[in-house]
């Protein structure tokens, strides 16, 4: 590291906190030309997400989706993971910060540790397993979880008694008790804070009896109970006596929306959804019936596909949702728990459950609050980083950005989005020092082995005693010698150790080995390392095959050494057989067009175009209408009260003035060709005389920000009476100081107009917040106005809850209605001679009184739904999918929220889902960051494990075209055969398996190679 302090701008950045947000921000920046220091105070990266079993609303396995990201960040040449470390101070200013980082001793050399776990087995000291939330114990020497990155153990010094036994057991000699705290000064141009959240500890809430009975667990504990790698190996049991529960209760808002006892006035945003997820997963986990009951105040399923998830839980999985307040939990002798609760009606009820899950809210980790103090950034009342809606990822100190749950409680996709947004914002001012600090690995030219027979070298690993202690490694080695094409064999104590790698390199060159087989651990963790060694020795990295004789052999057949040895021989024989058929897969460089096309001139589109331009690249901004600004033109203020109009006019101005932005008004996209890095799009512009002019734009990536619009209600006398208006119309009227608003004596807001209906089974997310904000505004201009908000659930998520609280304090009255029994608005005819003299009358059944109430409002505001804009042709031109509601579908609901499945295409704003303006801005910036991974490069590498077509055999039958899950293959009419763009192919091999003419081969997994392994297995000696 460069230890000298400078005042010049640097192309390095620092990310603090290596949860999913920190990882995303790091990858985005490292892939866009910056060197990233990723600092975390834990022993490994992954954060809270690594502890989760499944993720909503797709029920994807959390570890499955995060682990490729962990591996990528762990091996990235331009990401320096600094684990076990705290940032002590930050001097300097934006562009040239000097961060002092204290690296606490781990007592284990990360480079040497092979994570074999021998030390853990013999360590005599136990400690609480924090990863399993204390449901389990670990040793004083430990690894957080089996997939951890860095994959290395650490000694918990507070538990360790210093007996030295682990050192005796560690054959890799990775233990170093002499390790001491080290301080490093890092020169960085920007800092991103992504310290995440901790989970609220309900011990303080006396009535819930948490900590007094093991069958009362927090949601995170329950997550570990459900996890297959958790304390009960995924068998759902209650901790006290391991009985399979028959009835489980989930208690919502524990440590959230609770000022009195928890001091947390905000909504934690994620608990409703994770509780629903847990009910569904829990039911899946047991073969016996499970009664799941969720006790809640408002069900806040406000995100994309969340309401459908809620409905599914209710209607299909028969989860009981009980709107109530909890009085007490009383543990019973047999381990059951008696819950007393109060219904909306005021009735007190009791019910006994076998287990209780407390849906604990989120709160900022104390270490994060302390760090924020050291860095001098402003925190809000709840100790989260303070941000403005129009700059959602900027902290109060220039050059320091924030993302993820440290900015406010939020779910994974929102965190990931903000992470990319923070990456884009942090690097905006560093565009001119891009690629200045990044490293490039210097490699020798690849040796051409074409025409040579296979000369295979087999390296068998002892892995300390992990393999050698069970299987007979010398016998395996000698067996390998007898196999065809094998010209060199050896075994090593640790094949992955630095010195062995050097030795292997020498041997490869000396003996002219052209295929390498390593029999050791798993390719999932170690293949990249060995491939690097091959590459350094001048071999193409695909001339490599692994036999997994540890994770899938000696570790699981410890009790049968003879069988383990025999199986290892089988696996080595299979690997050697495939190795004889493997071939080098050269990668091809493709030039990249360094510009981005942005479709849609609303806030998201303009922010995206401006973001691209500020990164130093050309942006083409296309708007089909005649003015920029989209829906924001009607909005009065953000939810925090920042005025929208000045922001919008500044933004429009900036977009117009930026030299790197070219705007195409009244223009439509008609045709798109090409792939990631090189698209060609045809635009057609309508000029003033209605003549059409077409322009062809080359671009490396595209962002679709095609926006949405407000639903035009057909209900509640909308259109029949001037005082019935939508909430956007209310904003416009408010701006104009409309008398309908100023003179109103009784105003009624009706929620969910056109949302959460059979026709539109989604929540429009923004309406609750908007109505609360509008009601409060109405109260400020006219304190005497009486206001009713008629709602189904108040979904004021996150800090927006404070508006709900203020509204209640201000005397706004809330009446809840059921979807089956909505309010009825009718017109009472007035003086027939006078227009508009008819009066409004409204009937709604009060949820507490259970009786109809009649109101005579002089203002009715409808929180009408947000609909995506109609863009069927545009979406078809880009071949991007929309869901049943018309919103664009992202590549992955959790970890790729701004990407399309088709590479090089991104999305932002309302076209993705209804969202507030700060969320739209964040998503637009995120999309910019994602495009930088492409357009900041001069070329991209393509090739490797991809499908290739043999034209001779192709019958142009279209099977590949029809069966590819990504729609990549196409028939080239000129060439007369199918073509699969190397740059787009994901490498799954479905086409190769479907092709009736066997014209398609998936490289590195050809029929020949797969069959060679099978044949080898069964020709056992």
């Amino acid at each position, binding site marked *: 590291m460069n230890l000298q302090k400078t005042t010049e701008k640097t192309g390095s950045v620092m990310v603090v906190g290596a949860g999913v947000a920190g990882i995303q921000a790091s990858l985005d920046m490292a892939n866009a030309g910056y060197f990233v220091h990723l600092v975390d105070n834990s022993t490994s990266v992954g954060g809270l997400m690594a502890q989760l079993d499944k993720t909503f609303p797709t029920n994807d396995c959390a570890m499955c989706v995060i682990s490729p990201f962990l591996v990528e960040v762990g091996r990235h040449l331009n990401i320096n993971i600094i684990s076990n470390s705290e940032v002590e101070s930050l001097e300097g200013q934006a562009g040239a910060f000097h961060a002092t980082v204290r690296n606490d001793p781990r007592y284990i050399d990360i480079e040497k540790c092979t994570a074999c776990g021998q030390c853990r087995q013999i360590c005599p000291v136990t400690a609480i397993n924090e990863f399993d939330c204390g449901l389990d114990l670990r040793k004083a020497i430990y690894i957080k979880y089996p997939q951890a990155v860095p994959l290395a153990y650490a000694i918990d010094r507070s538990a360790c008694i210093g007996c030295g036994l682990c050192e005796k057991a560690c054959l890799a000699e990775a233990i170093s008790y002499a390790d001491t705290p080290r301080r490093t000064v890092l020169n960085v141009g920007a800092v991103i804070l992504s310290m995440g959240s901790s989970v609220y500890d309900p011990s303080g809430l006396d009535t819930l009896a948490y900590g007094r009975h093991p069958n009362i667990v927090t949601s995170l504990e329950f997550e570990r109970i459900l996890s297959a790698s958790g304390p009960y190996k995924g068998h759902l049991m209650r901790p006290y006596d391991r009985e399979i529960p028959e009835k489980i209760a989930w208690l919502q808002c524990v440590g959230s929306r609770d000022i009195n006892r928890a001091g947390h006035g905000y909504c934690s945003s994620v608990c409703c959804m994770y509780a629903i997820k847990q009910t569904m997963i829990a039911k899946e986990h047991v073969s016996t019936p499970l009664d799941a009951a969720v006790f809640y105040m408002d069900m806040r399923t406000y995100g994309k596909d969340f309401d459908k998830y809620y409905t599914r839980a209710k209607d299909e999985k028969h989860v009981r949702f009980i709107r109530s307040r909890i009085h007490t939990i009383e543990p019973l002798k047999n381990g059951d728990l008696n819950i007393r609760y109060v219904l909306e009606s005021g009735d007190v009820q009791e019910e006994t459950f076998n287990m209780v899950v407390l849906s604990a809210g989120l709160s900022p980790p104390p270490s994060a609050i302390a760090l924020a103090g050291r860095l001098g950034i402003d925190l809000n009342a709840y100790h989260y980083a303070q941000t403005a809606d129009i700059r959602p990822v900027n902290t109060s100190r220039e050059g320091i950005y924030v993302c993820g749950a440290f900015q406010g409680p939020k779910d994974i996709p929102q965190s990931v989005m903000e992470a990319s947004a923070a990456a884009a914002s942090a690097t905006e001012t560093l565009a001119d020092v891009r690629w200045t600090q990044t490293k490039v690995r210097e490699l020798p030219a690849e040796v051409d082995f074409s025409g040579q027979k296979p000369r295979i070298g087999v390296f068998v690993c002892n892995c300390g005693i992990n393999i050698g202690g069970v299987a007979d490694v010398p016998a395996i080695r000698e067996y390998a010698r007898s196999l065809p094409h094998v010209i060199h064999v050896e075994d090593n104590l640790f094949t992955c150790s630095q010195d062995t790698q050097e030795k292997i390199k020498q041997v490869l060159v000396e003996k002219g080995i052209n295929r390498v087989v390593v029999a050791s651990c798993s390719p999932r963790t170690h293949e990249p390392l060995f491939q690097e060694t091959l590459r350094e020795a001048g071999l193409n990295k695909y001339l490599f095959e692994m036999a997994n004789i540890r994770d899938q052999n000696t570790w699981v057949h410890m009790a049968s050494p003879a069988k383990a040895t025999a199986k290892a021989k089988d696996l080595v024989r299979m690997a050697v057989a495939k190795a004889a058929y493997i071939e080098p897969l050269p990668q091809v460089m493709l030039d990249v067009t360094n510009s981005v096309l942005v479709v849609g001139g609303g806030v998201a589109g303009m922010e995206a175009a401006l973001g691209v331009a500020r990164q130093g690249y050309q942006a083409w901004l296309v708007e089909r209408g005649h003015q920029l600004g989209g829906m924001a033109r009607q909005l009065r203020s953000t939810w925090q009260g920042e005025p929208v109009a000045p922001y919008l006019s500044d933004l429009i101005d900036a977009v117009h003035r930026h030299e790197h932005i070219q705007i195409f008004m009244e223009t439509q996209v008609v045709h798109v060709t090409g792939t990631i890095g090189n698209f060609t799009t045809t635009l057609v512009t309508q000029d003033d005389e209605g003549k059409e002019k077409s322009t062809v734009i080359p671009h490396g990536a595209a962002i679709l920000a095609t926006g949405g619009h407000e639903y035009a209600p057909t209900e509640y006398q909308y259109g029949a009476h001037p005082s019935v208006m939508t909430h956007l119309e209310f904003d416009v009227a408010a701006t104009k100081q409309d008398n309908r608003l100023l003179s109103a004596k009784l105003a009624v807001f009706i929620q969910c107009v056109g949302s959460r209906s059979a026709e539109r089974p989604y929540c429009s997310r923004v309406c609750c917040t908007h109505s609360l904000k509008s009601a409060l505004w109405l109260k400020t201009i006219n304190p005497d106005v009486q206001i009713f908000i008629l709602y189904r659930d108040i979904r004021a998520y996150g800090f927006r809850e404070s508006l709900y609280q203020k509204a209640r304090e201000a005397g706004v009255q809330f009446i809840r209605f059921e979807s089956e029994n909505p309010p009825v608005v009718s017109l009472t005819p007035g003086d027939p001679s006078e227009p508009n003299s008819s009066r409004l009358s409204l009937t709604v059944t009060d949820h507490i009184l259970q009786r109809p109430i009649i109101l005579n409002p002089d203002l009715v505001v409808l929180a009408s739904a947000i609909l995506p804009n109609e863009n069927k042709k545009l979406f078809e031109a880009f071949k991007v999918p929309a869901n049943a509601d018309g919103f664009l579908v992202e590549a992955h609901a959790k970890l790729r929220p701004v990407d399309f499945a088709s590479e090089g295409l991104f999305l932002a704003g309302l076209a993705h889902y209804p969202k507030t303006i700060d969320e739209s801005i964040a998503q637009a910036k995120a999309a910019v960051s994602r495009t930088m991974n492409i357009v900041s490069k001069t070329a991209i590498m393509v090739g490797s494990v991809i499908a290739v077509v043999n034209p001779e*055999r192709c*019958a*142009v*039958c*279209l*099977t590949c075209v*029809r*069966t590819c899950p990504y729609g990549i293959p196409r028939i080239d009419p000129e060439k007369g055969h199918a073509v699969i763009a190397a740059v787009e192919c994901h490498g799954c091999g479905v086409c190769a398996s479907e*092709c*009736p*003419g*066997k014209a398609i081969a998936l490289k590195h997994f050809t029929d020949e190679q797969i069959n060679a392994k099978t044949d080898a297995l069964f020709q056992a000696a």
Partner: protein
Amino acid sequence: MIVADRKSLSEIQDMVRDCRKILLVGCKGCVTVCNVGGLKEVQVLAATLRIAAKIEGRPLIVEETVLERQCDPEYVEMLKPVVDNFDAVVSMACGVGPQFLSEAYPQQRFFPAVNTTFFGGAVAHGIWEERCAGCGTCIIHYFDGMCPVARCSKSLMNGPCGGSDHGKCEISRNINCIWDMIVRKKTEQGRLNDLLDIVPAKNWQTARDGGPRQSRREELIQNG
């Protein structure tokens, strides 16, 4: 395209029961496109036959090859060097294939591995439907692109029979009544009156009924 179905395994096994060494020949034409006789299906059938022989403990060698087309002598010629090495040859082409093969190699036995079913196309991946009966006199223009000869169970040419039931043919719920479709389309296009013209009785001499057919293009025939 000619559409075919694989014969049942037992039927194929019965044909080759007395053979110790057979050759499977696929075709890169229609049968590859309809996923029944391309290289992949050749491999599948070959493996299946070998497994069957192994289960029975019977010696059997199965070799696999694919011809560009089995309906052209030049391609068929390519089997010449190997064709006599086998006890029999199994063709996975349409019915044309085994015949061209046996004409070229009269000394060898040729067996069909597929049943040739119809002329048609894929309405979705994995589903093929009949569209043409090869009658030799196309009258589709009367019916806006729909052929009652191939697609009406009775090949009626002047309207549906009494078995048309809510758009389906009485033969099977899976078969659309083509006359229902014709009438709908004509109605939509406001040309229902077209159907008032009687389509005259068809000359079936050009169809199979006139005996085996030959097609000659004098300008193409090589004299030399």
